């Protein structure tokens, strides 16, 4: 939980990009535009892209810079209303019923109103997001929506349209300030069009060499200038290879910090081969690159950097 006071939403696209840059999340203009529109128009933001490009990160950064609460709903197959919206504390309710019985309370209406009250209501992320908050509307992150099934998507569509939830025993709860909703997906399943139409969509791709260089230098402060250039150039070259899973921004940051920890000043084939497991997570990819391929790639990268100087 952060203690900074809530800030107003950014007033322009430039202000949005600057806001994200404060927390060292360097984004390009397209994502800044979509985020600004999502905040201004009050629409959910739907981010799709490969794993490791910073989709989840943007929600955290937004919550941090705007000084709002971050509520995270991690989606999985079989996610239902009980785990996403609310659940009753059944054990406590049963004890309360027994206790009322022992005390001699027989008025059914009174027992019911006591048992089905907020005291026994366990609020899950979606309901927490609808609660009024003095600190301003929270940021609701719905992570990896493609892991759930169509039934949950239909339910989510309803919630996102009206920002209200009906609890049969207690009535309807409506949000006074609709939360800032960010939905992410890894595209292992096509999310239904109806939900995408409600949101503003953006595909988060891999960054360009210049932007990735800035990101690495911002996030790994102790890194040397030459090493950062070589790391970024190598990862960009790797992405052009025929790999099953290309390394994302998270992987290149991990690799950069790993190399800094190892006090490496410049890349050489032995170091790269040893630390390849940080970049590539599939054995087939590592096997394809082992040995001479790494040296070849590294030589290419170094000669390009020399030519650019």
């Amino acid at each position, binding site marked *: 939980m952060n203690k900074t006071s809530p800030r107003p939403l950014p007033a322009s696209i430039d202000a949005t990009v600057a806001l994200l840059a404060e927390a060292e999340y360097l984004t390009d203009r397209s994502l800044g*535009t979509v985020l600004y529109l999502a905040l*201004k128009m009050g629409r959910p933001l739907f981010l*799709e892209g490969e794993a490791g490009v910073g989709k989840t990160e943007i929600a955290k950064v937004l919550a941090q810079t705007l000084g709002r609460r971050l509520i995270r709903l991690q989606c999985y*197959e079989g996610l239902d209303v009980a785990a996403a919206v609310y659940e*009753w504390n059944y054990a406590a309710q049963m004890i309360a019923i027994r206790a009322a019985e022992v005390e001699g309370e027989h008025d059914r209406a009174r027992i019911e109103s006591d048992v089905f009250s907020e005291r026994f209501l366990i609020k899950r992320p979606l309901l927490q997001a609808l609660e009024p908050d003095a600190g301003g509307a929270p940021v609701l992150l719905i992570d990896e929506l493609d892991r759930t099934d169509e039934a949950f998507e239909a339910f989510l569509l309803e919630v996102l349209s009206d920002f209200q939830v009906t609890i049969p025993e207690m009535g309807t709860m409506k949000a006074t300030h609709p939360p800032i909703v960010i939905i992410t997906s890894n595209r292992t*399943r096509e999310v239904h*069009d109806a939900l995408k139409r409600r949101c*503003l969509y953006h*595909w988060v791709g891999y960054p360009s060499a210049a932007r990735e260089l800035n990101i690495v230098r911002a996030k790994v402060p102790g890194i040397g200038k030459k090493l950062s250039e070589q790391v970024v150039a190598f990862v960009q070259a790797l992405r052009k290879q025929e790999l099953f899973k290309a390394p994302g921004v998270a992987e290149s940051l991990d690799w950069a910090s790993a190399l800094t920890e190892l006090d490496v000043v410049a890349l050489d084939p032995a170091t790269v081969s040893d630390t390849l497991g940080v970049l590539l997570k599939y054995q087939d990819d590592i096997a394809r690159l082992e040995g001479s391929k790494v040296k070849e790639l590294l030589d290419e990268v170094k000669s390009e950097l020399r030519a650019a100087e």
Partner: protein
Amino acid sequence: MTENTGRLAENIVYFARALRAAGIPVGPGAVLDALEAVKAAGVGTREDFYWTLHAVFVKRHEHSLIFDQAFRIFFRRRGYIDQLMAMMLPQAPNAPRSPEAGATRVHDALFSAMEDKLKKEQEIELDTRMTVSDREVLQKKDFAQMTATEIAVAKEAMKKLVLPLAEVRTRRLAPHPHGHLLDMRRTLRASMKGGGGFIDLRFIGPKTKPPPIVALLDISGSMSQYSRVFLHFLHALTDARKRVSTFLFGTRLSNVTRALRERDPDDALAACSASVPDWSGGTRIASSLHAFNKLWARRVLGQGAIVLLITDGLDRDVDDTLGFDMDRLHRSCRRLVWLNPLLRFEGFEARARGIKTMLPHVDEFRPIHNLDSIADLVASLRVSGGRAGDPKAWMQKVA
């Protein structure tokens, strides 16, 4: 932007219509959103305007390219008019640059007249008085030797074949009379009816659902007749349930899932043929499988998919990548079923190099040449496994 803001709203509406014509589904709601968005973001630089409209109109990653071309043509700078004129005139004074990939498509959508509708084949009168023995003969008759009449009857028979296939357990829980987990919510509500005096237990259990099906059909010369008939089966299957994805491959891979969603089977097949240029061409199984693994496997094989691979396995150039890609495909799905029309020959042996490479990575190896074989397929999908389609039998014969 040289237009004054009075015309900008109109132009955005026309731009939305252009996008619709080019293939991006844009509803009236999206147009209103676009106007709201432009008002919110202000009309600033061209780049900002581009991304503002992109945020509202593009809802799929694939539409990004079409949007890009449409935007460039619609909100063009002055110099672009010459290029556009050059594209439209048959003989330009200075040779025009060849238009980029999406540009011709968008250009056709915006400027050409409506395409002629596909002419339907002449209706053949069906002799509906089929005797029992005729029907039996039809069940066993090879698709390649069927006349048009017989194919029409076979299509009807296949529609009836689409029955619920084996279901798999999902992680979603639903009320179940004999479940093994207590459903606290319903238990408590049921016991409240009696004033809380006794507890009436209710149970939940896992729901079952039919698994997604992915079909990869070979449409090269030798296979096209069988694939065409199997497409009817897949169309009926797509009608019956969700999560059926169909891909056609010959020299390249095409996704025809959306085309098969048309209600009318003839329309669906016409849409398929229209979207695939290399029907009855050559075969490149290895590169098509590689393309599938790279671009589509992660998107359609989730949640325990069954893959139906319909090909004869005769590839002109076989190299090591074929085995590698078959292995990857096998590992990514729940069950890989290979349907090969060559099994119609009594003395079939798995000698061809392509077939020998692919056979070890397959869970089932079955024929596909007549209605009986399709009925067998449906029956086998109901029960997982089964000895009839075991590929090891074929591998041992050749070894």
